């Protein structure tokens, strides 16, 4: 398909749902709960992370309602602390970390590399059960009375001063961490050992590359979080003193261990999203991703640099000036591979046959918001600015631009993009475009004022604030309401489409990925025969030729 043709999607009115697919291959609730099929586990994950997303979102709503007025009047200040803690724990550990990898990644990685399943299906299922156990413990901490450490469990606050359910929440995160380790381990082994004949490393879709990089972070980073949490628990239970200055311990050691995971964790969250964006941008521009190799290696570079920037969370905590200088420099280096991606996506769009389906709208949202989020990250990485801006709403706005504006947009782009593949049915296009636009507007209205608030000096994590900040806070709360509507809409219409959506057919987007060459929803073992790959990724001429030669359509 040359760059000048106007795309005509295949006629979907003749498409039929395949009689046998992974959804109806086996019946009964146990066939889901004991399944080894990566696609079914992905759907289990999708349901459970959606559940936790809306719980975390409800807490975000409560936070915004409390901040509608300067006084702490909706809830008491310590309840407010529990709100933002629960919001943070749920959104970081139970939504963002598993969001794309455990759902879309789980569904697609084996298909994209041409395998029948992930290398260790039972471990994949175990990973979901661990996630659920972690989720239940988090809910237990919530129901029993909450926890108010902030999601960062900062010592000595978490070890000495709080009498809330720190241990329950910490155990939840410890367990959820292993779920993430197992997902990463499964992906790495699958990508190394299960690729179909001809699927070389540089023929893999960029989605797989970014998941590979994120998996490296999961496997190497998460155990360090696990040991940090174990030490906090021992400190709380036995008072062993490793983080207690009175006994010779060092509270900063906790910060080092915690951020050694939790900084790479933001790349665990964003990298899979970047993979989604690569697929979506290429498909709806009908062009190979510009600079494929550069984009692939930039994922690995982000993963690599990501391990050497953690101390930028501690610039104001008394680390040495020299190490602060080095970490500041390294932090800015991360901007380079991130910019490589953004520029390459922009060049992919150039002279492409762009169409504006919903996933593409979300992808555009991602590119703009992630760029703002990334650039403000450079502000925070520079030492002088950081001392002014850290622990203010500026930093809140910064990471919400990356995590919500970036990752959540990418997640929704991915869910819409692969919805036809996962369920066999289309989502309603105009309603979903409305949702995408609503999300974008609501998001900006929520978080742009927070940059200004933070720059003016409003600190984060307080239930009350001086009255002169109220106008911007009201704007932000209004935006959060719009944003909430933007997130409710997909839940409703995607649910609706499961039964009433138009039948999608194998390849509604005319995309080149291997997953689009099989039936939707796929068979339990994905392929009828092992595919042999003799073409590059994003080869639209190959697809055009193949479509021309195709004699039958699968009914």
């Amino acid at each position: 398909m040359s760059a000048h043709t106007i795309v005509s999607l295949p006629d979907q009115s003749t498409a039929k749902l395949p009689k046998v697919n992974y959804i109806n291959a086996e019946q009964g609730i146990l066939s889901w709960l004991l399944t080894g099929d990566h696609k079914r586990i992905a759907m289990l994950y999708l349901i459970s992370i959606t559940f936790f997303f809306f719980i975390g979102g409800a807490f975000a709503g409560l936070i915004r309602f409390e901040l509608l007025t300067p006084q702490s009047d909706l809830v008491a200040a310590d309840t407010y602390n529990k709100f933002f803690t629960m919001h943070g724990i749920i959104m970081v550990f139970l939504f963002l970390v598993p969001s794309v990898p455990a759902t879309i990644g789980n569904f697609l990685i084996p298909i994209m590399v041409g395998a029948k399943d992930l290398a260790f299906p039972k471990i994949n299922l175990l990973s979901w059960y661990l996630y659920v156990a972690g989720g239940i413990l988090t809910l237990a901490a919530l129901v029993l009375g909450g926890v108010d450490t902030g999601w960062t469990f900062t010592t000595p606050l978490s070890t000495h001063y709080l009498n809330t359910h720190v241990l329950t929440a910490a155990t939840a995160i410890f367990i959820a961490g292993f779920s993430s380790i197992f997902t990463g381990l499964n992906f790495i082994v699958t990508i190394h050992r299960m690729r179909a004949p001809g699927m070389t490393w540089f023929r893999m879709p960029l989605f797989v590359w970014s998941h590979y990089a994120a998996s490296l972070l999961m496997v190497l980073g998460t155990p360090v979080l696990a040991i940090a949490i174990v030490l906090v628990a021992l400190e709380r239970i036995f008072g062993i003193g490793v983080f207690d200055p009175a006994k010779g311990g060092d509270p900063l050691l906790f910060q080092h261990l915690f951020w050694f995971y939790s900084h790479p964790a933001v790349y665990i969250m964003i990298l899979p999203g970047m993979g989604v964006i690569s697929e979506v941008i290429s498909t709806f521009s009908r062009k190979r991703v510009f600079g494929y190799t550069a984009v692939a290696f930039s994922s690995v570079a982000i993963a690599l640099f990501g391990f050497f920037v953690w101390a930028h969370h501690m610039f104001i905590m008394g680390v040495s000036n020299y190490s602060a200088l080095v970490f500041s420099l390294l932090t800015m280096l991360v901007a380079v591979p991130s910019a490589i991606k953004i520029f390459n996506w922009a060049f992919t769009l150039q002279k492409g046959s762009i169409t504006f389906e919903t996933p593409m709208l979300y992808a555009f949202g991602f590119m703009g918001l992630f760029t703002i989020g990334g650039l403000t990250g450079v502000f925070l990485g520079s030492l002088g600015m950081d001392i002014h801006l850290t622990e203010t709403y500026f930093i809140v706005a910064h990471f919400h631009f990356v995590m919500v504006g970036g990752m959540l947009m990418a997640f929704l782009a991915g869910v819409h993009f692969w919805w036809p593949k996962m369920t066999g049915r289309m989502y309603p296009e105009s309603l979903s475009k409305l949702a995408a636009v609503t999300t974008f507007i609501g998001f900006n209205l929520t978080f742009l004022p927070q940059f200004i608030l933070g720059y003016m000096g409003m600190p984060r994590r307080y239930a009350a604030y001086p009255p002169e900040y109220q106008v911007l806070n009201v704007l932000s709360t209004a935006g959060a309401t719009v944003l909430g509507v933007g997130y409710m809409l997909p839940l409703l219409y995607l649910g609706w489409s499961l039964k009433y959506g138009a039948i999608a057919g194998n390849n509604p987007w005319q995309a080149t990925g291997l997953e689009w060459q099989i039936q939707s929803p796929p068979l339990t073992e994905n392929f009828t025969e092992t595919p042999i790959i003799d073409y590059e990724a994003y080869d639209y001429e190959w697809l055009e030729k193949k479509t021309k030669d195709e004699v039958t359509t699968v009914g």
Partner: protein
Amino acid sequence: MDNAIVDTHEVHEHVSLPQHRHHFETEEQQREAGSFGMWLFLLTEIMFFGGMFFAYLLYRNWYYDAFAAASNQLNVPMGAANTAILITSGFFMAIGVWAAEMRKRKMLVWMLVLTTVFGCAFIGVKYFEYKEKYKLHHIPGNNFSIAMFVSPQNYPQYPDTYAEKPLMPDMAQKTQVFFFLYFAMTGMHALHMIIGIGLLFWLTWRAWRGDFSSGYVAPIENFGLYWHFVDIVWLFLFPLLYLINRHPLN
């Protein structure tokens, strides 16, 4: 369905083992994937222990005198005996892997039993070491006592400590950090041993049943990797905790 998809079924057609899982093309692929996964898991274990090794490095630099004094209190003969026991256990495990590959069922079972016995012996010795620490009030917490380090002259029955210079009380307090790290690191190591011994019982039973006598040896090989990893962690712990800066044994 597709011109790029070619039937490759004939290539791999042969009688497969009952343990061959359907989603792997070949048994070779299954075996490689399994051992690769195990190596990755061990990598996560290195990172897990790494956090504690990092803490050890930090506090050893800060509280050098306390660490030297506390380290000299540890029981080297018991630690050395445990090192020998663990290496022996690892040796039998290695023979066990060989026996599985050679499809010698009886020998495999015996080797796994010996591995288990020596693993349990290690835990046993560890028990007596911990007991000694308990008696001396060297377990961090409310009952921790620094008496031995502020006045070592009162402990002639511990020649290594007896020869130490007394520590100032504030530095002596820091021995608690050493003992915390000692218990956390050896405790986490012992926990890995106990999990390993649990797995050994299960593997021994399966080996006795004959599961690994027909060429399917992946669980034995992968468990062997795990067991050797646990050995190696000890081979780092022993010198770091017991031996560094110990003055010549007299």
